[in-house]
């Protein structure tokens, strides 16, 4: 889509990690309710947000995504009791790592989204995409000649 000559418009790519039980279902709900959101996200499903190794987030950035959204069930609703507690704890450390790296921390977001919160899912995606568009391409994006 880079028609002749003009400045290439920045089309961010954002990885969204979803847990099987709530946030993935929330994303489905957004679809079922035909909520429209920008097409920049790519969802990767795991069973529980607790499976999301912070390494996956780092890897996403190293591979060139411009933002990462980590999602799971609301606190107290995790299908595996408290997987999301661990997600939250890891996220605290991870976001601090982003800060230190000097990568804008707005590129990484954690949200709890229930199976019924299709609208929330759509809204969060909208916000993240907007945010990331403002920030521009990730400085960690590989430079490929």
């Amino acid at each position, binding site marked *: 889509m880079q028609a002749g000559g003009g400045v290439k418009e920045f089309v961010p790519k954002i990885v969204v990690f979803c847990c099987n039980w709530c946030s993935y279902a929330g994303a489905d709900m957004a679809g079922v309710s035909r909520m429209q959101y920008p097409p920049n996200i790519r969802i990767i499903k795991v069973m529980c947000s607790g499976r999301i190794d912070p390494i996956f987030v780092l890897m996403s950035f190293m591979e060139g995504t411009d933002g990462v959204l980590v999602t799971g069930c609301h606190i107290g609703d995790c299908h595996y009791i408290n997987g999301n507690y661990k997600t939250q704890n*890891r996220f605290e450390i991870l976001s601090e790592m982003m800060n230190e790296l*000097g990568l804008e921390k707005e590129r990484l977001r954690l949200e709890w989204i229930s199976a019924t919160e299709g609208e929330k899912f759509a809204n969060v995606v909208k916000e993240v995409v907007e945010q990331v568009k403002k920030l521009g391409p990730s400085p960690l994006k590989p430079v490929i000649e």
Partner: protein
Amino acid sequence: MNIGTGKCYLAWATDEKTREKGSSGGFVSAALAAALDKGVVERVLVLKKHDVFKGIPTVTSDPKEVLDCAGALHMTAINLAKYVDSDVRIALPAKPCDARGVIERAKRNQVNLDNVYMIGLNCAGTMHPVKARKMVKEVYNLDPNAVLSEEISKGKLILKTSEGEKSIKIDELERQGYGRRDACKYCDINVPKMTDLACGNWGVPRGRKATFVEVLTEKGREIFKNAVDAGYVECEPASDKSIEIREKIDQAMKKLAHEWHEKLFEPINKLSDSERLEYYINAFAGCTGCGACKKVCPVCPCGDDAKCTMTEFQSEVHRIRMFNMIRLLHLMDSCIGCGRCEDVCPAGIPLTMIHMRFTERVQKKLDYVPGIDMKKPPFFETELKEVQK
């Protein structure tokens, strides 16, 4: 004498040779030997002197060998934590970073702390052997191989050769870019409060060949009492004055460390966020992925196959290797700043400083300091914690 936990003493080896050889009254060697002799422990881990620039971690059950190793080695940089095999009861002399390494390893089930007796040593820092050799040649004008022994006294590093001795102020050495390793310069944990016995010469009255000993745990008391009962050691209670002086020196050292911290971190501290990212990308650009930093890291429990070494694909396009990123991540909550990674990095990346930058953030945010107690690292936490933003 009735030796009690929480109390401070002056103690010295009864054996004159050990007293002379030891850096301050030979208490540590004598107590270790006594522990072996009387079966308080089954093994002792010591640094066996190869030459002044090299000590070899050695596990022994021979009290004589322990006594032979009396005396500090300031120009080697080894962290003993990785050499602690705690299948049997074992004692070791532990600098604060040795001890912190042991404790972090215990949290990762690599060490059974019940079996480990740590005789802590006050530490103001050690030197990197390669740099030290250079320093001996260029600042002392001596042949490094001719140096027979060394000693630090009153802020001076004294080198002895067959011709005599030569001493230069450490401040002066450091002014010339030598002296202690950077990690030591800004390390502010000088008194090993996390061990069983904290020993050192701070607080020892002038002219006395003795060690200031603080008994920190029941285990420490056991070692101390055993050494006294077995006749290896004599002691007297430390005076209030001694205690005060030791505390003052500790505070002074801390202050100095903080000044160094500011100075050494300046180049990174002054960068903006985006500049910092460039800095890190450039700093890590030299990494060859040799894995030496991981091998020496006392906190890392992993073998050769670990997430950091195995998640290594498409690195040619990554701006920072996944290896470096994962190590930064995994040490975010637990780096003890011992400086070993920096010591061994062939690319000369200031790794410890970088790790400290990351670690200090987490430690501040989550109010957690690694290696000083058995508190769970934040990464192991399974409960929700209120985080002060």
